[in-house]
């Protein structure tokens, strides 16, 4: 159900007084839990909860011919489904623009940060490489599916093991794994979305806060290096407001990484 206008106005008024309904600070995330190995047949998987928002992300791998312009590199494909079971706002049918945008934002965060070492996923140059499929599913939508998806994706990738490959048949033995982990960089990229409500910026909105959000900027970064960014929704931002978001993003990454580090061993 759409948040009624009167609640959106109250959220704005509270923010003017420096308050959020659940008492959090503007730069504070809800409680985060991460459970890796949430789906055993996947090469890697993770269930992430941020407050009541819950997503499951899975990684599958398969062999494929490489793209002509990257004959010695594996490939990445990210999709997302906002499932009707996760909210009465989502309907069955072809992918919504929301799910397409979410998948593409996460894709760019992972791809541009070069988190996955795609050049280590070549079996035979020009002929056979590993393809990585990342699929994101919403289980319960209570705001900030984007950042939850980002955390889930990174956790699932860190948890992933390469499947067995039979050199004689030249086929993947699905359901059996090597002890080799998927090669990823040490520096962990995270996507953090800043929402503007009235004259204030918050992170990790609840569904109600997200409905009151006028515009959002999602930044994918790792320790001060920004690799992806997307502004969404209508309201324009001044150059000063954008500067402010860039400044906040570095601090926010450090904060979020410290919150989830222990889960990402």
């Amino acid at each position, binding site marked *: 159900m759409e948040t009624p206008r009167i609640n959106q106005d109250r959220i704005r008024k509270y923010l003017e007084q420096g308050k959020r309904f659940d008492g959090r600070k503007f730069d504070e995330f809800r409680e985060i839990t991460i459970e890796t190995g949430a789906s055993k047949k996947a090469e890697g998987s993770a269930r992430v909860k941020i407050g009541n928002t819950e997503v499951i992300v899975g990684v599958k791998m398969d062999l494929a011919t490489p793209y002509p312009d990257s004959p010695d590199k594996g490939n990445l494909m990210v999709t997302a489904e906002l499932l009707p079971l996760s909210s009465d706002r989502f309907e069955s049918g072809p992918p919504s623009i929301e799910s397409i945008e979410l998948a*593409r934002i996460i894709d760019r965060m992972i791809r541009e940060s070069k988190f996955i070492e795609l050049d280590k996923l070549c079996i035979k140059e020009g002929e056979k490489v590993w393809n990585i499929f990342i699929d994101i599913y919403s289980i319960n939508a209570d705001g900030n599916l984007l950042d939850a998806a980002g955390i889930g994706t990174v956790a699932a990738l860190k948890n992933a093991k390469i499947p067995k490959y039979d050199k004689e048949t030249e086929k993947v033995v699905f359901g059996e794994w090597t002890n080799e982990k998927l090669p990823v960089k040490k520096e962990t990229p995270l996507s953090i979305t800043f929402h503007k409500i009235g004259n204030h910026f918050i992170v990790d909105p609840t569904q109600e806060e997200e409905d009151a959000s006028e515009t959002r900027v999602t930044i994918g970064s790792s320790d001060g290096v920004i*690799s992806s960014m*997307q*502004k969404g929704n209508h309201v324009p*931002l*001044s*150059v000063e407001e954008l*500067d402010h978001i860039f400044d906040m993003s570095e601090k926010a990454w450090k904060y979020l990484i410290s919150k989830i580090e222990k889960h990402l061993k």
Partner: protein
Amino acid sequence: MAKKDSFERPDGRAVDETRKMSAKVGVVENADGSAMFSFGDTVAIAAVYGPRKMHPQHMQDMEKGTLRYNYNMFSFSVTERIRPGPSRRSQEISKISQWAIEPVVMIDKFPGNVIDVYVSIIQANASTRCAGINAAALALAHAGIPMKDMVSSVSIGKLDKQLVVDLSKAEEDWEEGEGATDIPITMTGDGKITHIQLDGKIETKQLKEAVRLARKACKDIYEIQKKALKESVDLKEK
């Protein structure tokens, strides 16, 4: 900032120089408004139909009108043929382009109605979404849709460590050093940002500089857009 003499761009431009731009309105006879905009070899056309009744009816917004933006690339606009029809990429670009333009269109004047903006890329040499937005803004103005301001769009790039204005395809594919970072930005005439995206690798300090470079370039683009509109009015008056 810009070491103009020491950095060589593939086409010999200065680091803060856009490609040759051209703009023209009235390129689609049937449309309520239309325009063409190009950055060098990147050519976009836009046609506006509306305001008209919104169908299906259950999607009508009775408080304000709707702006619908559809971006598509001709299959032969690029070197390797694109399968015709919408793709995930074109759907995303349609959405961010709608968000880029909507703030300056007075849609509250058309409750229950829709303004359809159709953008096609005839020839692609990078910065297609920016050319599309520039053409679309012109087409809306040409259609006489009431607008609070104009929007102008440009891509800022970082090639290795050097910031440049208006990325060409050759620059989008830059491989030396840190490679290419692509930052398309759309701004209103009074300097507010309605759209910004980024992919690549950049630090905050340089990113702030990139936004300021965009502001300057957008001002130049705005002049080209204004000129195209003025020329069409002059022609009408003759």
